[in-house]
């Protein structure tokens, strides 16, 4: 891996951790299990656009691992849940970019990512609770909540990606 890539990925991971910690320290505006703003997805989006799925997954892993160490929830429930959501979102966004990248802008990818994120968390929550009925009840709400948060993070990521000189050769369709 060339040093620029390494440096960039590390920085993205660091930003991801920062955003994750920021989000974790704020009161939850939406009282649903598994619903999150997903600010860290901004960073994952950028990683996906710049370097593709595999590297984005590395960023996500690093982000989840390290932020859980900082928070103190390493290997705890919160860790697994955020990992489930994060990996799901990253995969969804990465694959989305690979298959639909010519049609979707970052915003669309972000909506996919937010949806996958919430679904992943809900799925794990259902397993933890031990009941499938939870899915029935929370699914429509989580799907709906994913839209605005996806749009929001997507637009932010888009704005960042399009800053002149920021991405030059690495960004693109």
């Amino acid at each position: 891996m060339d040093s620029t890539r390494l440096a960039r990925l590390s920085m993205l991971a660091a930003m991801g951790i920062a955003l994750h910690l920021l989000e974790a320290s704020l009161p939850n505006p939406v009282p649903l299990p598994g619903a999150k703003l997903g600010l860290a997805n901004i960073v994952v989006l950028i990683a996906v656009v710049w370097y593709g799925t595999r590297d984005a997954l590395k960023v996500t892993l690093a982000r989840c691992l390290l932020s859980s160490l900082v928070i103190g929830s390493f290997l705890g429930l919160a860790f697994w849940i955020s990992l489930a959501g994060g990996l799901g979102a990253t995969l969804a966004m990465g694959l989305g970019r690979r298959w639909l990248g010519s049609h979707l802008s970052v915003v669309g990818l972000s909506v996919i990512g937010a949806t996958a994120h919430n679904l992943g968390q809900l799925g794990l929550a259902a397993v933890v609770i031990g009941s499938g009925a939870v899915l029935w009840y929370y699914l429509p709400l989580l799907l709906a909540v994913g839209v605005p948060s996806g749009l929001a993070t997507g637009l932010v990521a888009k704005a960042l990606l399009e800053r002149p000189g920021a991405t030059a050769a690495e960004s693109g369709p």
Partner: protein
Amino acid sequence: MLRDKGPGFARASRVWGLSALRAGGRVSLLLLALAVALAVTGCADSVVVATPLKREIYALGTIVTITAYGPEAERALDLAANEFRSVERTMSRFAPDSEVAEINRQAGSREVEVSPATLEVLGLALRYGDLSGGALDVTVTPLMEAWGFGGDEHEEVARLPSEAELEEARALVDYRRVEVRADGKVFLPEAGMALDLGAVAKGYAVERAAATLREAGVRGALINAGGTVKGIGNRPDGRPWRVGLQDPLRPEEVMNIISLADGEAVVTSGDYQRFIEVDGRRYSHIIDPATGYPAERLASVTIVGGDAFVADALSTAVFVMGFEDGARLLSAERGTEMVAVTKDGQKLTTGGLGARLETVP
């Protein structure tokens, strides 16, 4: 910034607004706003649904449960409950001021004036006395008393009457001797004779209550007066009312379920309802007037038909007559069928009733 989902959202909504206008007007924008609003505000917790109201009263010597739903249900239930109380007040031989009690008191001495309702009930009971060849006999009271089936269940003395006692009682039992005068007065010619309308009063009261409910505008209701059941309309969810039929041989179990048509009634007579037990043998409260002994041809019979009043009379008659004679009696009745269970558990049905008996899941 995070609370209103960020500046990106504001930008997005501006963009949305424009693209929506391009796509075809404010309608799509409105739909989008609606979708978001729906998502964010959440769904209502409860849905206003027709919840049935249940009323339970003690009347006619048994527990009467009336279930009804709809806006008029509350008021209608009051009226229906009153019907039961009214029948009890007028026709129960245990109510001291009832017309029947007065008739019984005046047996052998005076005729008694009665209300049209009592005349109607007595008239039908006497008619079925004829149709059943005397199996249903409203004057069977002395025999019942001889067997210990007096008023209060708790006072029943479990002993067998002697032949002499039965002879004496049987002499006072004959429905054909009841005199219903042209002016509507009723006379029992011999002291010691007594009317008991218990075999038909519940059915009559159920029909009156049902009529009252319908008049009050109730679209769906279920009445159960001590096992005498009648349904109006359907359950709130549109499915028919389902009535379980008690297994006479296994006390706590239901042997079949039957789904009611609008207005259909189900009435059961069984040897397990009221009985005395002497030396391990069970004696039911339904006496065969011909023998003076409790009827023992069947363990139970259930009549299904459109009129609870008629079904009530038939159930007692058939219980005494047995399945074959009972089936003959039923063949003259329109739209009425039965299922009878013999003492050894054999189930016998008439007409299409067999096909209607559903198994219990």
